[in-house]
């Protein structure tokens, strides 16, 4: 085995508790999403022998999840690198499957963040050289990056508003999205500032939700009821823990993760039909479009203007409505994968990208701290 390209495929996806699911624990919501994914794949829990998960609620995520589900996986990983963890798990699961460490890999996440209090739940510890100043994590850190990008490249709040509006317009085509009421650029520009230049409408949602993905080796993928979504490439890049340590405050490590993932897949930006970018804040989408090669550095603001990434635009980005308008239960990475798989299956109805064969999934964790890119493809891409 020299390459992971096409070595494994996603054959099951499931979601639960999107938006609000009162009275349920994070693990309850996770469990219901696992049930949905098993049903989608035509498998039972007894078939699962590989477990990949991360959590903001559990310091030993894989242990808590295995106990709740009542499984004793042969191979497991609970690496926690923030919301991008689940995209990183795709590569780890593909490696485990390709080398025979497991036969059926389950990647899963659940959160009751909204019902449990409506605030961002984070186990993140205050950083020693930030805590004295009352930095409000993570939004102040993202705001510092947005402010610097505006300073260097002339990006405006109106450019960021375009991103929020595009996400909402996609959400209006997705019956599962949490926020579907009309949103205008003017609404975003008039919204209450939280950390300048970011307003409350530049921020992701606070919802409940769980998601699960089932992966098997590619040679078994055609035996399942759904169209497989093949893993074509993936890579993880670590950048910094504290925002002042970010090597370049206007360029993320998505440059590194993207180049490595493209290289593994033998693909480039021009080959991508649909993108799922981790939009914890509007500035994320803008930076990832630049850093993943969809426009030159500094041009993100101009690139997104005039509905370019909205339905009917020139690039299909975050077709479920994203973390900004669809769902964001603390960590969003698993939902990036699920939407990409749905687009490759061709089951997205009003928001379906016609003939989508290649999907780019990009996860972000911390405050631009971890960047994970994966490329998924239909059978035609093998």
């Amino acid at each position, binding site marked *: 085995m020299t390459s992971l390209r096409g070595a494994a495929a996603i054959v099951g996806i499931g979601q639960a508790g999107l938006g609000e699911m009162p009275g349920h624990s994070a693990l309850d919501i996770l469990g219901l999403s696992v049930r949905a994914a098993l049903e989608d794949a035509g498998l039972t829990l007894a078939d699962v022998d590989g477990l990949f998960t991360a959590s903001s609620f559990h310091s030993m995520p894989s242990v808590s999840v295995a106990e709740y589900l009542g499984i004793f996986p042969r191979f497991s990983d609970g690496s926690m690198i923030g919301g991008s963890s689940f995209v990183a798990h795709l590569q780890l699961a593909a490696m485990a499957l390709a080398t025979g460490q497991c036969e059926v890999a389950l990647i899963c996440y659940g959160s009751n963040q909204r019902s449990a209090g409506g605030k961002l739940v984070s186990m993140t510890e205050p950083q020693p050289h930030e805590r004295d*100043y009352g930095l409000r994590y993570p939004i102040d850190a993202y705001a*510092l990056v947005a402010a*610097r990008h505006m300073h260097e490249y002339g990006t405006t709040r109106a450019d960021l508003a375009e991103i929020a509006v595009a996400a909402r317009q996609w959400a209006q085509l997705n019956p599962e999205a949490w926020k579907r009421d009309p949103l205008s650029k003017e609404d975003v520009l008039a919204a209450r500032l939280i*950390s*300048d230049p970011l307003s409350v409408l530049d921020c992701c949602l606070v919802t409940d939700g769980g998601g699960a993905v089932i992966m098997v080796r590619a040679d078994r993928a055609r035996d399942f009821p759904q169209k497989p979504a093949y893993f074509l490439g993936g890579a993880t890049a670590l950048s910094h823990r504290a925002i002042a340590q970010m090597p370049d405050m206007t360029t993320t490590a998505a440059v590194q993760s993207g180049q490595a993932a493209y290289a593994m897949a033998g693909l480039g930006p021009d080959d991508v039909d649909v993108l799922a970018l981790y939009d914890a804040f509007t500035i994320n989408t803008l930076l990832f479009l630049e850093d993943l090669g969809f426009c030159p550095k500094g041009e993100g603001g101009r690139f997104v203007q005039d509905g370019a990434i909205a339905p009917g635009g020139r690039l299909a980005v975050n077709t479920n409505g994203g973390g900004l308008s669809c769902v964001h239960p603390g960590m969003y990475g698993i939902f990036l994968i699920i939407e990409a798989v749905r687009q490759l299956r061709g089951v997205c109805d009003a928001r379906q990208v016609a003939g989508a064969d290649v999907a780019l999934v990009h996860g972000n964790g911390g405050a631009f701290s971890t960047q994970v890119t994966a490329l998924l493809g239909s059978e035609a891409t093998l």
Partner: protein
Amino acid sequence: MSASDPRATGPDQHHKAALAEGRLLLQRDPATGDAFFYPRAVLPGCAEGPAPDWFEARGTGTVYSTTVSRRRPEQGGNRNIAVIALSEGPRVLSQVIGIAPEEVRIGMDVRARIDMVNDQPILFFTPAEGQS
């Protein structure tokens, strides 16, 4: 408190002890002179290399990025959060004080000011003289 021997106390305590005496210490690679912050026992990117050198920073820099972290008055009101690029190169997270949070601008020249907060010396920055 006197600035202690870094080998006896560890880098963080050495840094803090100097700060309490009104001196901002940084570290650098003795071979290249490249300065870095925060204090470390080994060179970042070169753990096999020589022990980092300590030196006293000038205490000057410019605002690299800034935000107004908005809060209700009962939560302490709006506060500035800034990344300062020190003249020696490293960037530090801090707060520009002595000026309204909204008035802090990227590129503004600033000077270090060490204040005691809860008996701990904390590194802040104020606009350098001549800044409007």
